[in-house]
């Protein structure tokens, strides 16, 4: 049998082909399990729509989201008395198109969510791996630091940080990342602790694998599903935090549209022109709900403990 194997340069291509076939098989397997959960698929579709809105905002949005039109302030949504399809969701207190602002607002929320979670996940994975794998005083230091960070209420400290550093995109990211990494790091640490003494890790050690190999190749791939699930669910949380900060005027700064600041501004007119605050609120609700449904679906489909 062994003679049948090509050990020529073609081998590299064959290996890649095999790897691709393997990946495809895994993806198909994942999709079979994921698609059974209808709610999760709905959540995924909602999130996908939001992402498309955010990515292609300049092409989708019918109007400039920051262009005021003082002759057409407080125009109601299209289906109400006095509304027109020119502004399907009406206009705000400065006569800006609500739909365009919500579409652009998706971009702000997603940008913050994606950047914060990416940073937090990378930092968290690293911290969790080191903390769990090496243990000892490294673990003690990282874990006590996490405890300290977790002891502060999220929003209060974010507000304080934003107050001190001043508003701005970089500062906003910083104010959210500084403790967001704790969640993925805890998850990874837990998985590492569990995997550290599993026999396949011992087997790798017994054949002389280095720590680096064991951490990155043996243990880390087995934490991916939890990390992906947690990252997804935390995006929703970060988007909420961003909206809260923007609501308080500490997040995304006007005139750039953000759902949080739109709610804050629309709040004053809630009794006369309810759509100013309601539509961005619905946007937040749907996005967060969609992400949560998707995240839970992912958890069910990816968690190997629920398999078999």
């Amino acid at each position, binding site marked *: *049998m062994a003679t049948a*194997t090509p050990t020529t340069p073609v081998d590299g291509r064959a290996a890649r082909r095999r790897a691709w*076939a393997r990946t495809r098989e895994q993806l198909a397997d994942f999709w079979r399990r994921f698609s059974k959960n209808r709610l999760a698929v709905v959540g995924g579709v909602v999130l996908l729509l939001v992402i498309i809105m955010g990515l292609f905002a300049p092409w989708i949005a019918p109007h400039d989201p920051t262009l005021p039109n003082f002759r057409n302030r407080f125009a109601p949504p299209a289906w109400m008395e006095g509304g027109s399809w020119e502004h399907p969701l009406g206009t705000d207190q400065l006569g800006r198109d609500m739909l365009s602002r919500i579409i652009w607002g998706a971009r702000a929320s997603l940008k913050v969510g994606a950047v914060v979670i990416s940073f937090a996940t990378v930092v968290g994975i690293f911290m969790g791996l080191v903390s769990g794998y090496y243990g000892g005083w490294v673990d003690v230091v990282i874990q006590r630091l996490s405890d300290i960070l977790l002891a502060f209420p999220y929003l209060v400290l974010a507000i304080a940080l934003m107050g001190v550093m001043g508003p701005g995109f970089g500062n906003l990211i910083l104010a959210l990342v500084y403790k967001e990494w704790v969640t993925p790091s805890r998850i990874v640490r837990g998985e590492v602790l569990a995997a550290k003494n599993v026999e396949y890790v011992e*087997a790798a050690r017994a054949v*002389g694998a280095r720590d680096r190999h064991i951490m990155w190749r043996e243990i880390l*791939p087995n934490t991916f599903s939890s990390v992906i699930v947690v990252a997804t669910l935390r995006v929703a949380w970060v988007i909420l935090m961003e909206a809260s900060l923007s609501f308080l005027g500490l997040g995304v700064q006007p005139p750039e549209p953000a759902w949080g600041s739109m709610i804050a501004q629309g709040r004053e007119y809630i009794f006369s022109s309810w759509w100013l605050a309601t539509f961005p609120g619905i946007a937040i609700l749907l996005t967060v709900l969609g992400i949560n449904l998707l995240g839970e679906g992912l958890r069910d489909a990816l968690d190997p403990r629920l398999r078999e």
Partner: protein
Amino acid sequence: MAEAQAAVSARGGGGGGAPAALERGGLKADFPLLAHFGERLFGKKVRHVHAVDGVDLTVYRGETVGLVGESGCGKSTLARSVLRLYQPTAGSVKFEGREILNLPPAEMRRLRKDMQIIFQDPFASLNPRQTVEQIVGLPLRIQGVPKHEIRGRVLELLEIVGLPPGHIDRFPHQFSGGQRQRIGIARALAVRPKFVVADEPVSALDVSIQAQIINLLERLQEEFGLTYLFITHDLSVVSYVSDRIAVMYLGRIVEWAKTEDLFAEPLHPYTQALLSAIPTVERRGRRRERIILQGSPPTPIDPPGGCRFYERCFLKEKNETCRLVDPELVDLGNGRKVACHAVAGTL
């Protein structure tokens, strides 16, 4: 330590005469009980679990030594200490006459080519995210086999352990328990080791599969001249594969004998109890008296002095000496050693 070496030279003239593949002397593996950070801060004394406590064990080249004992007696800890998967707290492990406990990492890595382990749980011992090629190929990669040769070598190994070569790209969950164990064996054999620790290699398998795996292990031993340290709690398995048997109780070896001798005449009361518990199918003839031990082994956390089997010992002869003096492993000649005051006549 001196004792272990004496055993080697004494055997050298009379018995097989093969040099020791593996010796370890006075091996101790203690695990500090996880103390709270605060407790350590305030200088509380850390207690230790003495999983393996002063064990001497010599394995000669080409033989199979069976290590028996109940769960939690330190068999697996002993095995892992020998391979330095745990760092023992004291003692020495010599492989082909060379001390390995203080080898620098690079040399230890090279030596791992010669000593491998087969694990008990065929489900936990294979990384669920890796294919057979990745799993079996890892030791080859680490030992520096060129990349393009690995796949061919893995295919050869699959053939050796009796798996279809077409399964090379599969994942562990696509195999049965017996097949998974074969993958584990292929991985252990990949680097052509001299010495293999088999840590309960069949106890997680169905009885019908057990026989297949044991036969495979025996065939491989002949084919590759392997030396086995075979750990198990299953006495019928151990009697089948082992040349010599060491019986462990609570971190100590209490009896050492050639397999036939041990089964013909177990000396240590614990061994007697163990052997009497083997289920038999004999209808006629003498039925062995079943010895049912009272209680359970004491905790290995800072165990008291004296014989560790004292509490459960059923010998009429047991007395104060047993309670107070820790019996040493006494050489009775003919490869037989026992740690019991009553048997060794040191009461």
